[in-house]
């Protein structure tokens, strides 16, 4: 299910003194199976943008297509809107606030049940999702409110993963998690991506963008500033400066080495291992 934005504008509270245009002329394509990062300053419209993907927000003008679904301001009732929500799962910023059931397992099964799965299937899916996010079986019957912050986050994410969406949209999923937990989460998303799920992730962590994503959308002041691969972005000092982004640690390290005369190929560097490989290669060739 490819996603396409064409000439999308979105205005909050139109025709009131609080009117605010959060998206301006967005044109954007996201291919099926990609792992796309959306980055940009706070208030640049990232969350607003992704809420169009499962029609939580309708464009004020313009059109969003997700596979066969067309979301525009004119269509009053979108056909099969409920199905769209199943295809495109959205995990909000700080999703732990959406927990409400008596037990962890019931809470995660809530989603599948809403999409008319029978009890057994719903609970099976919930168990699978919980295990995949690293929640132990002995926590299944606890109240979600007794869990730690990080555990709550995992349960909330499992609540969407249990829907088995074709598109998984994540709004800052690792914000506030411990480094190890964040890495586990990222690996989980990567695994989902390798199994064919399209992942769209809002993040402020450039290291994750470099390591996990194959496309990056840079937003600035309600507009899309640039769409490219992570390495194209981090190689371009102009845009980094323009949007005010920090480069990943690995890239600044590699750039410093290059300045000192080491012949590294930035295009091949994605994480610590590939950096080490490049350094070793460069030293051998010397």
């Amino acid at each position, binding site marked *: 299910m490819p996603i396409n934005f064409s000439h999308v504008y979105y205005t909050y509270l139109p025709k009131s*003194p609080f009117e605010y245009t959060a998206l301006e002329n967005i044109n954007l394509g996201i291919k099926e199976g990609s792992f796309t990062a959306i980055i940009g300053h706070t208030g640049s419209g990232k969350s607003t943008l992704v809420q169009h993907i499962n029609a*939580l927000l309708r464009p004020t003008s313009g059109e969003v297509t997700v596979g066969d679904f067309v979301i525009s301001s004119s269509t009053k009732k979108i056909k099969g809107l409920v199905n769209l929500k199943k295809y495109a799962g*959205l*995990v*909000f910023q700080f999703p732990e606030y959406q927990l409400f059931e008596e037990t962890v397992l019931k809470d995660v099964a809530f989603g599948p049940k*809403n999409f008319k799965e029978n009890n057994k299937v719903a609970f099976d899916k919930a168990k699978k999702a919980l295990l995949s996010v690293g929640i132990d079986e002995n926590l299944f019957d606890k109240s979600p*409110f007794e869990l730690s912050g990080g555990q709550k986050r995992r349960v909330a994410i499992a609540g*969407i993963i249990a829907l088995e969406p074709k598109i998984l949209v994540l709004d800052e999923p690792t914000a506030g998690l411990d480094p190890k937990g964040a890495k586990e989460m990222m690996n989980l998303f990567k695994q989902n991506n390798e199994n064919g799920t399209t992942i769209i992730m809002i993040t402020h962590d450039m290291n994750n963008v470099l390591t996990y994503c194959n496309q990056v959308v840079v937003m600035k002041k309600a507009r899309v500033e640039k769409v490219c691969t992570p390495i194209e972005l981090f190689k371009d000092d102009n845009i980094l400066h323009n949007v005010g982004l920090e480069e990943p640690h690995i890239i600044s390290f590699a750039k410093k080495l290059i300045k000192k005369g080491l012949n590294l190929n930035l295009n091949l560097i994605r994480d610590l291992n590939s950096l080490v490989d490049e350094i070793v290669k460069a030293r051998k060739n010397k």
Partner: protein
Amino acid sequence: MKEIALGRYVPYNSLIHRLDPRLKIVALIAFMVMIFFKFVSTAMNFLIYGILAIVIYIMMRIAKIKLITLFKSLKPMWLMICFLLIINILIPSTGDVLVEINGFKIYYNAIFNTLYIIIRLVLMLSLTMILTSTTKPLDLTYGLEWLMTPLKLIRFPVHEISMIISLALRFIPTLLEETDRIMKAQSSRGVDFEDGKLKDKIKAIISLIIPLFISSIQRSEELANAMEARGYDPSGKRTRYRKMKWCLRDTLSLGFIVIILGGLITLSITSFDVFALLGIEL
């Protein structure tokens, strides 16, 4: 969701925005009292309502409130109005009969009484809307606190009450935002808040209410801790950064209100009837 934000403060800079909050509260009370005055005849009642409506409409224009916002907030009241009409018709009344169906009499009075209630409701709503959309919640509580100061003499906890009111007002927008967010999150999990069977509806509401309650309780706990950490003491004496200042325009407005109020009281007490005076039969 957006419509709930009705009556929320709108930052224009009209004359009414600049008036002193104390004056605005007093004026609201005065107008509310006026709305409930009774005059000699039905025609007189409607005439005064008409005049009040025009005055209130002019105030709304000054405050830059659009009529459409008022009607939007009236929408949920249709049911109540119909209900009122039915009750008024069923209650036996006196006076002239409008129609008679199978011996069941519908009186003019029943219709008029319902109309009175509707008019009063609309006028009260407009007045409240003028107050809340032109006055910052914080100014409103300062005004209230000032007006309630005499109650301190009878040991009424004026400061505490106004602190509670201002906190409550402060958190209304936050709560609305939170509601919006949780609704979006739950509808991403397949909850349908718009239609569906009763059972699904109940489940939908539960999935909204519980997280809302929990985050509110958490928030109030955090707030209480933060206040205590900064040494908040309800009985402490405090000064204010921004002082309310009474200006000439406030005095003039107060005069205007006193004149109207006095006029209406006189009309009511003296059983004045323009229509009789002019010899108009109704």
